[in-house]
């Protein structure tokens, strides 16, 4: 197994416009020497959706906390809309909205009261504030919940209220930390539509963290894969997938076999197979034409006495990108313990 160094792929990295968000060499060490970030650099183009993709504990939330002035980096610099997060936190706070990982709705207040207080904290008042509260309630389908105590709202509705609160002061950059974690599929689809609309219609810059590959693929124009506090690769979802030429072959073996045995069995196929990895019983590889290569692979395994349970051929997904750059499958990683 090989882990490739961080690389920048795809298009749209260099632009003349000032980035909406810029992070440079961010590190964060928590007490007890937990190194949450080990030098993170990236920039986000205005008006786009940028996804930080990685498993729990990769450091995504730490990045968001630093960019939203909640936490200070141990070293490194960051700015939002040109304002330095350490030197001008007040200015940064005025231009950002945050929807944190945990719902931050005040459960003892109504939906309208939650929105109103949030607006007041940003100095809004009077008819202007009332107009925005009504507008957001309507936009997020919460008009009927206006006078309901938040405690009585469903998880999906509370999450929408969270997003609405993040928008009350019309921020230029919206940070969404795991916006759909814990939502049922219907509420998630709903949230995806809303997020896509934010960038498309409102011209907002959205920085999204997620551990759902699908979510990053679906929503983001630019994805940075983060693992163990470092960005391992970044680019457009299309660019990242295109880099993995050809199809992905995945073979589930019926038993666990020594890695050497498996590689030896496939040794004769070196000109067809690329990037062969064995992860437990999962054998993955890339080929130019999956359908044609699969019988050859199965025959080679059979010839070496390796029994196969299932075999699939797929177009490359972000899953494969993740596997290639981190050296381990995404789902394995996600079940790993949380550091922070």
């Amino acid at each position, binding site marked *: 197994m090989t882990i490739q160094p961080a690389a920048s792929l795809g298009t749209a990295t260099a632009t003349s416009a000032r980035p909406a968000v810029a992070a440079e060499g961010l590190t964060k060490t928590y007490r007890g020497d937990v190194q949450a970030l080990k030098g993170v650099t990236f920039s986000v183009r205005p008006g786009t959706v940028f996804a930080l993709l990685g498993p729990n504990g990769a450091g995504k939330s730490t990045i968001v906390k630093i960019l939203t002035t*909640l936490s200070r980096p141990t070293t490194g610099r960051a700015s939002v809309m040109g304002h330095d997060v350490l030197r001008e936190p007040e200015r940064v706070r005025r231009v950002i909205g945050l929807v944190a990982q945990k719902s931050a709705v*005040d459960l003892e207040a109504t939906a309208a009261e939650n929105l109103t207080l949030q607006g007041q904290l940003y100095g809004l008042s009077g008819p202007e504030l009332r107009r925005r509260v009504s507008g957001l309630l309507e936009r997020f389908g919460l008009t009927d919940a206006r006078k309901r105590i938040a405690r009585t709202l469903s998880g999906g509705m509370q999450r929408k209220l969270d997003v609405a609160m993040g928008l009350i002061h019309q921020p230029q950059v919206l940070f969404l930390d795991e916006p759909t974690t814990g939502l049922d599929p219907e509420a998630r689809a709903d949230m995806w539509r809303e997020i896509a609309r934010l960038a498309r219609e409102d011209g907002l810059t959205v920085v999204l963290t997620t551990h759902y590959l699908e979510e990053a693929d679906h929503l983001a124009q630019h994805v940075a894969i983060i693992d163990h506090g470092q960005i391992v690769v970044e680019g457009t979802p299309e660019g990242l997938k295109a880099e993995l030429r050809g199809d992905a072959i995945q073979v589930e073996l019926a038993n666990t076999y020594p890695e050497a045995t498996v590689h030896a069995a496939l040794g004769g196929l070196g000109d067809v197979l690329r990037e062969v990895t064995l992860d437990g019983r999962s054998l993955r590889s890339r080929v130019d034409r999956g359908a044609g290569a699969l019988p050859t692979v199965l025959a080679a395994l059979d010839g070496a006495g390796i029994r196969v349970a299932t075999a699939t051929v797929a177009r490359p997904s972000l899953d494969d990108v993740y596997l290639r750059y981190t050296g381990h499958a995404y789902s394995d990683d996600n079940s790993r313990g949380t550091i922070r």
Partner: protein
Amino acid sequence: MTTALANSAQITTRYLRAFLRQPSYVAFTLVQPVIWLFLFGQLFKRVVEIPGFTGSSYIAFLTPGVVAMSALFSTGWSGMSYVIDMERGVMDRFLVSPVRRGALIGGELVYQAGMTLLQSLIILALGLLAGARFDGGIAITIAFLVGIMLLGTAFASYSNALALVLRTQNSVIGAVNFVVLPLTFLSSTFMPVNLMPQWMQDAVKFNPVNWAVEVGRQTLSSSIDWSLVGRDLAQLLALTLVCAWLSTRAFRAYQRSV
């Protein structure tokens, strides 16, 4: 400055609204002092017969003490709303906004002081009904209420500081209970100082609850010792400032640890 005041008022409103939405909590807050007043009033009724006790009504003697004790009990829970806000992520949501940090702390303390005042007025009214006579007049009564609000604010700040450092409901409850009852019994709430053992008479001088109770006792007397009142109020003010400072320090520590 106006922003800070507006923010404080908004935060105070938030707590007040949540309080009023819990009728059972409102009821308990109001009923609890009644229980203290009449339960202890009956239990210790014959304390007046002990040689050395000045005055003839134990209920009158007890009323200022119950005011102080109730202030301690209710403001001790102050930190719980901080713990809930931290757990819920509400605190971080506030911190990401440009809200004045002082307003987050101050708005909550204003609410606590207001609740303490309301509760104290109710207890004084109950005492009056039960036969206590506040011969000291209006000025000393106001001075007493100021003292009680200082005690309440100080204790709320202590509770908030604990909440910001300990961050779990159970540890805050434990730490608050650890001091509430000892401070109450180590004061002249139930027993005049001159009837206490000598070591207690010495210790009582350093007990903020006793400072407030001492001021309260003056409300019953027609000849007020204003120098005692002045000294006790100054001590309570100093304590409040120290506790408020501690809670801001704890708040900064919390911000750094996020």
